[in-house]
């Protein structure tokens, strides 16, 4: 807490040196905060990671499946629904992590503003939010996949790759929802609206529980624009070798990557705008 040299040159050189380190690693420094504040919910998150797949698989994969005697898409109902459940778990977990936790950072305890007063750049703070979300989503997906294996729901030798496709859609949701949440200045229940009007219909109408073709044609567009449908279909290709033209599989990947980049860039911009006003 003492001031040594008082010449301008000292201060300048010292600042330049200290700043260089933060410019390089700032996103990770900030991510430490996200991880630490998630720790308070650690037990809940771990239990959810195990309980969610067990509950859904027991009720839908076994209970509900007993009503569906015929194969769906040429496989058992459990096999059909498994990759989609995996992707939706990633999607909803990521979306949750991008609503109130982000709103809290901007509003309830305004911790993003205190971060912005440190050498961290707003874009690095946005990056840290994504790192924090990934730290929740990826382990959730890995646990889910492990339970799917125990239920013998993922027959293909490439099925482990569904961990990637599911995590990818999780991060797409994280990027897009964070982008929106970061623009919210007044909490009027927008978070509930996002969950009920976007995330939930996506979960229900994206070919999760039944092939998209079962929907009337005028509702099928919901699936085409839904990142969850692309991720579920990709997951089905990987987990049981669902037959699909190669261009369509490539489209799934492309849509997810493009949405991820759009959301990420958009969110970083909003963080910059709000934290440097």
């Amino acid at each position: 807490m003492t001031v040594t040299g008082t010449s301008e040159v000292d201060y300048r050189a010292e600042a330049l040196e200290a700043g260089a380190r933060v410019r390089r690693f700032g996103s990770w420094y900030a991510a430490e905060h996200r991880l630490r504040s998630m720790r308070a919910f650690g037990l809940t998150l771990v239990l959810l990671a195990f309980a969610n797949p067990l509950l859904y698989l027991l009720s839908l994969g076994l209970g509900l499946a007993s009503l569906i005697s015929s194969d769906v898409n040429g496989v058992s109902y459990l096999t059909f629904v498994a990759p989609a459940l995996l992707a939706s778990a990633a999607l909803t977990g990521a979306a949750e992590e991008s609503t109130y936790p982000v709103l809290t950072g901007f509003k309830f305890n305004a911790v993003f503003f205190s971060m912005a007063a440190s050498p961290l750049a707003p874009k690095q703070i946005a990056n840290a939010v994504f790192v924090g979300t990934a730290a929740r989503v990826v382990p959730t997906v890995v646990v889910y996949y492990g339970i799917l294996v125990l239920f013998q729901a993922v027959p293909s030798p490439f099925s482990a790759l569904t961990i990637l496709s599911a995590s990818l859609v999780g991060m797409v949701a994280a990027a897009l929802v964070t982008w929106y949440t970061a623009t919210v200045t007044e909490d009027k229940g927008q978070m509930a609206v996002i969950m009920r009007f976007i995330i939930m219909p996506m979960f229900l109408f994206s070919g999760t529980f039944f092939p998209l073709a079962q929907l009337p044609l005028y509702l099928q567009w919901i699936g085409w624009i839904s990142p969850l449908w692309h991720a579920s279909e990709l997951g089905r290709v990987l987990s049981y070798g669902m037959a699909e033209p190669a261009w369509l599989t490539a489209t799934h990947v492309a849509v997810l990557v493009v949405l991820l980049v759009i959301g990420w860039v958009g969110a970083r911009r909003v963080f910059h705008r709000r934290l440097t006003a």
Partner: protein
Amino acid sequence: MSALGSLYARNARSVVYRGALASKSSNAVVIISGFFEPIFYLLALGFGLGSLIGTVQTQGGAEVPYAAFIAPALLAVAAMNGAIFDSTWNVFFKIKYAKLYEGMLATTLGPLDVALGEITLALSRGGLYAIGFMIVMQALGLNLAWTALLALPAVLLIAFGFAAIGMAITSYLNTFQQMDWINFVLLPMFLFSATLYPITVYPEPVQWFVQALPLWHGVELVRGLTTGVLSPLMLVHVLYYVVMVVVGLVFTTRRLRVLFLS
């Protein structure tokens, strides 16, 4: 416990009045979104998934289309979720942060007025959603008998039961993390209580367990009424909820008294 007089000033309506005023400033889209939630489920599962399933046999032995099977269950689940949300998150926030009840109990109002007022508010919202959902059911041809009309009071009773228990539990909780545990109870209840498929798919011991849960009684009560397959067992379902209401109110009142009046 002391005389009812110190707990109840027969003025729950002023709590309702305050809530009605406060709800004016809330976002209409949020309120409307609560109405659409069960309808989305009904359309996606009842019809989308239903096309893979066909018909299902109810507990009462009737063979009904899948959509007609899950619609009453979704109605009961919506009543449960709405009542639990209003009586847990909302009430928790008001106790811990807004200090709303502290202010109310500093007037002539007693804890029972507050509890009844909050529950009335929750029920009126839940009742509106239920009416909306039943109209949709009627339009889709999922009300199979005139007794479906009785589903409306049944739904209110279910909501009352959950709201009373929810408030009682909330008044004992201290942190947001503890609030998360409520979801751990709701999700399995939703998934396993004969909502999406008959419980006959389970081994018998599991069936007994499910039949002990409150939601199963609610689902069976509403399903019996909308499908028109009545049985004396439905009186047991009603009794189950009456007990929930009484137990919930007793504990809530007692706890609010300890929290704010001692």
